[in-house]
């Protein structure tokens, strides 16, 4: 053997007489597929551990001891292996396996949703025997049983491949479905009265190789051959999961996850998957509306735009504000920034609602990608919301990294999260003191451990000792009841860790695109400050404008003549409901640009411009890594609704300015021309990144500076509020999705059981929660995952919203809990 051969980094396998080079350790089924030979399969799924359940992938393998049938999904390639996927023996095995699988299969393909895209159907045609010798009675089960509010299971069709159950257990960690009984009675099922209520249940429907699992939103809606599809980007949260959008007769009917290696690996949260229902909902705005005698009434575009123009013309730029924009495509965001900053001359633009982070914390710190966060052997420090609730697909990626790839997770969160059971270290600081904990953790790394934020020194030291490999901080707002400055201070402390990168956990759809397009005070497109200017803008504001909270305060004081709500609902989403109400009431003209009417629009908008939905426009989105990917138009806009960029262009025109934008493509060209970070953004690059997207890196934004604020101590009678998001809430989009709306749990006040005794209360008691700002009533619930001294109330849950208790100007919110 020569030296060169010794260094050979691949494994040579003879596949059907042809030598191929495979990667060491690669499974035979994958190596064959990469080289153009598709071995039929049912149970194998490239993103899950192989189990060898179905035997469909049997091929003849000779590893030196003569040919034998082996399951290619369980066999790693070996040097000198000879494989025959077309031999007589292989064919006979395939025939046999299919004949066995079809013994109990009902063959009700004509009424099965999977018909036409069914691996069992396809592989039977391609590899099967054509005829069955089985004449006995097939196994019978009650036809589909609901195993959750969304998913139905038809056990007769199931071929027991273990894909759904493996997904639930290994990938999602929600082991709520399992094989039950054995032998001929083996079936997938749930425990009685414990439905498959997983945020990720839709994935099992997508990966089931037969029609055993079906999801309510798509059942009996279409046949696969009637569907048209296009690759696009999910818009519900900021992960930017890649999806296939499928439609029939101009209606979106289904979303499937696409396996993008850098993003979602084919998985979706149910919220991303089924969120399209909102776009088809009856509540969609189909035409502009104007308030007449206190009621919103339909009107035409001409009068609506004229009214909007009248409201905006000749107004002091300082008295105009724009709140929202995370729903928009990058192109629409650019057009709106150009309108607001370049034409109207106001810098009062904020795509976040006071529930996010300042620009410096997102664009001013070294960034990390999802794949970097998931580096085997690396460390993830979570300072932010529960990814399981806010960013489903990111949760699945992080979970995989921790469970399978030795990534260490250290949580610095106010309560237990969906990752706590697998976290190496779960440290729960007193709400409002995560900055102190972060600083203590950094000091502990250099050997100086101390108690901080109610967490003992030895726990901090143990966490510090566990830090290894590249470190990624997942950074977001864990609770809207504490000010953003506290999270920022924590980030500043953690930025001292060697080689650390930050992955933003801002949750809202295209909020990162909004920042890249300049939709924040002091910012211009291309991650540059106002002072850099923008060649394509006629003018650029000189003074840094107001953020959402400041705009609402100004409006409340009568200092805003026009407030534009760009797909935003401050009443429900801003941390301070009282301020939002006063702001909306005090603003001069409130113009909403909306797909669906929300609480703020319904009560306060004077004018509503109907916007087209994400599947109805062409454009791009930017995810939490800064990755840009295409969002294709699949159907035509609802009614006369228009793309947001068109609305901006039209308004500009009526105000005597020309945005100079004709199409999303022309806007992209302008972005590439003016933005230093988008210089490489070409149509060709986007087309190449059809699946993986295009990562936009670099930034001219300075790192944040410490706030220097300190959190006040609370008195012995009060509890400190934690207000976090839940996956299913009272959000407008979710509530307009027929099959998800009912999943939102009504509001509860969750305390550590130890605090019950102190307060003399029990779980289930309805209590009154009182803060300096307001009060709400809700039943009590017990959870050891909430530290003593804290009260957890979800933000925007049906019933009452925790934001009624919060004062946006205070750094933390203390509440008293009393028997109602």
């Amino acid at each position: 053997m020569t030296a060169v051969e010794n260094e050979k980094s691949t494994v040579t396998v003879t596949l059907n007489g042809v030598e191929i080079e495979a990667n060491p350790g690669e499974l035979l089924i994958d190596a064959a597929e990469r080289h153009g030979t598709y071995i039929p399969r049912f149970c194998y799924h490239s993103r899950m551990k192989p189990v060898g359940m179905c035997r469909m992938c049997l091929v003849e393998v000779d590893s030196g001891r003569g040919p034998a049938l082996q399951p290619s999904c369980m066999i790693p390639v070996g040097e000198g292996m000879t494989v025959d996927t077309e031999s007589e023996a292989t064919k006979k095995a395939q025939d046999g396996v299919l004949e066995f699988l079809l013994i109990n299969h009902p063959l009700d393909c004509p009424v099965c949703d999977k018909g036409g895209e069914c691996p069992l159907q396809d592989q039977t045609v391609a590899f099967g025997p054509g005829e069955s010798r089985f004449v006995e009675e097939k196994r019978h089960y009650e036809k589909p049983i609901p195993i959750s509010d969304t998913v139905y299971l038809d056990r007769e069709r199931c071929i027991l491949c273990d894909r759904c159950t493996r997904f639930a257990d290994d990938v999602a960690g929600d082991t709520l479905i399992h094989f039950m009984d054995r032998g001929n009675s083996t079936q997938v099922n749930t425990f009685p009265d414990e439905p498959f209520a997983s945020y990720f249940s839709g994935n099992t429907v997508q990966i089931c190789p037969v029609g055993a699992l079906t999801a309510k939103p798509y059942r009996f809606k279409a046949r696969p051959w009637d569907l048209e599809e296009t690759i696009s980007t999910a818009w519900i949260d900021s992960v930017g999961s890649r999806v296939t959008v499928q439609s029939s007769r101009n209606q979106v009917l289904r979303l499937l996850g696409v396996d993008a290696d850098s993003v979602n690996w084919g998985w979706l949260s149910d919220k991303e998957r089924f969120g399209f229902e909102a776009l088809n909902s009856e509540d969609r705005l189909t035409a502009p509306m104007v308030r007449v005698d206190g009621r919103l009434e339909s009107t035409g575009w001409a009068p609506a735009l004229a009214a909007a123009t009248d409201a905006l013309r000749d107004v002091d730029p300082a008295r105009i504000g724009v709140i929202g924009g995370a729903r928009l495509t990058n192109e629409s965001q650019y057009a709106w920034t150009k309108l607001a900053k370049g034409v109207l001359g106001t810098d009062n633009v904020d795509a976040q609602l006071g529930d996010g982070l300042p620009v410096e914390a997102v664009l001013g710190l070294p960034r990390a990608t999802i794949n970097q966060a998931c580096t085997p052997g690396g460390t993830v420090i979570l300072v932010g919301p529960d990814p399981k609730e806010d960013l489903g697909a990111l949760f699945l990626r992080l979970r995989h990294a921790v469970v399978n790839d030795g990534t260490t997770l250290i949580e610095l969160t106010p309560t237990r999260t969906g990752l706590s059971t697998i976290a190496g270290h779960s440290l729960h600081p007193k709400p409002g003191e995560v900055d102190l904990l972060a600083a203590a953790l950094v000091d502990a790394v250099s050997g100086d451990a101390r108690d901080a934020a109610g967490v003992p020194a030895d726990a901090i030291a143990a966490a510090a000792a566990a830090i290894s490999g590249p470190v990624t901080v997942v950074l977001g707002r864990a609770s809207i009841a504490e000010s953003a400055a506290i999270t920022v201070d924590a980030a500043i402390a953690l930025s001292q860790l060697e080689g650390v990168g930050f992955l933003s956990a801002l949750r809202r759809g295209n909020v990162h695109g909004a920042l890249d397009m300049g939709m924040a005070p002091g910012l211009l497109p291309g991650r540059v400050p106002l002072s850099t200017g923008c060649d394509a803008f006629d003018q650029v504001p000189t003074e840094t404008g107001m953020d959402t909270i400041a705009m609402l305060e100004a409006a409340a004081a009568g200092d805003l003549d026009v407030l534009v709500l760009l797909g935003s609902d401050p009443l429900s989403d801003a941390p301070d409901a009282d301020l939002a109400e006063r702001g909306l009431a005090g603003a001069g003209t409130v113009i909403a640009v909306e797909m669906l009417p929300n609480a703020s629009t319904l009560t306060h908008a004077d004018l509503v411009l109907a916007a087209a939905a994400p599947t109805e426009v062409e454009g791009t989105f930017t995810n939490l890594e800064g990755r840009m990917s295409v969002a294709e138009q699949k159907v035509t806009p609802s009614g006369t609704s228009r793309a947001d960029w068109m609305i901006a262009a039209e308004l500009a025109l009526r105000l005597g300015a020309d945005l100079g934008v004709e199409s999303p493509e022309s806007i992209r060209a302008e972005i590439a021309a003016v933005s230093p970070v988008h210089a490489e953004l070409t149509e060709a690059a986007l087309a190449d990144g059809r699946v993986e997207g295009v990562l936009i890196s670099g930034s001219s934004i300075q790192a944040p500076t410490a706030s220097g604020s300190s959190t006040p101590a609370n008195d012995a009678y009060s509890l400190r509020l934690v207000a976090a998001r839940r996956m299913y809430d009272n959000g407008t989009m979710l509530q307009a999705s027929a099959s998800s709306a009912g999943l939102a749990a009504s509001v509860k006040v969750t305390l550590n059981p130890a605090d019950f005794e102190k307060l003399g209360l029990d779980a289930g008691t309805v209590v009154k929660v009182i803060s300096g700002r307001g009060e709400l009533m809700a039943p009590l619930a017990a959870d050891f995952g909430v530290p003593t001294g804290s009260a957890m109330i979800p933000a925007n849950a049906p019933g009452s919203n925790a934001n009624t208790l919060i004062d946006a100007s205070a750094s933390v919110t203390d509440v008293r809990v009393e028997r109602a």
Partner: protein
Amino acid sequence: MSYFNADNLETAHEIISRYPRKKSALIPLLHLAQEQEGWVTDDAMRQIAELTDTTPAEVKGTGSFYEMFKFHPVGTYMINVCTNLACQLLGGEELLAHAEETLGIKAGGTTADGMFTIEDVECIAACTEAPCLQVNYRYKLRLTTDDLDQLIDDIRNGRATDIPEHGTLGLVRQHVPADAGAGIVAPEQATERPVWLARNDAVAEGGEG
């Protein structure tokens, strides 16, 4: 709400402590649950899930693989009639039909007085003595229908003293007290070779083992 009574809960904790992974205690805990109530209730499975950091679906999925765990109440005497090949050839099915007729229930059912449950089972490994059955896991071999009538009559009148009246229970209760355990560690945490391996080596080398 605890399903296990105080004694059994203590035993449950002891059982769990024997395993490096809590989940490994599933089967002994299912036995314990069945011992307490005669069958494995949903509440029992919920508590086992809690005790072992698993889900009730996992507990039921694991338990329901085993025929000897019952997920519904069974009679004081459980008659398992074999109808597998050898027994079938020698009258197992007739035996079953006779039992069904005599007791007025179908296989799988329990008499109204809670006395008998009949089950139709696969080979119970006594083919040479076919047709055969088990009552509370005690073998009755080479049975005729008359023998069966006699057996039922004996049981009814308290003459079948060789058969304990415990329905589903096994013969022995496996119980290793915590201090007598071998102290097994999880494979990924093992730093030394397991004790028993060292013992084997000693035997192989002809030393005292």
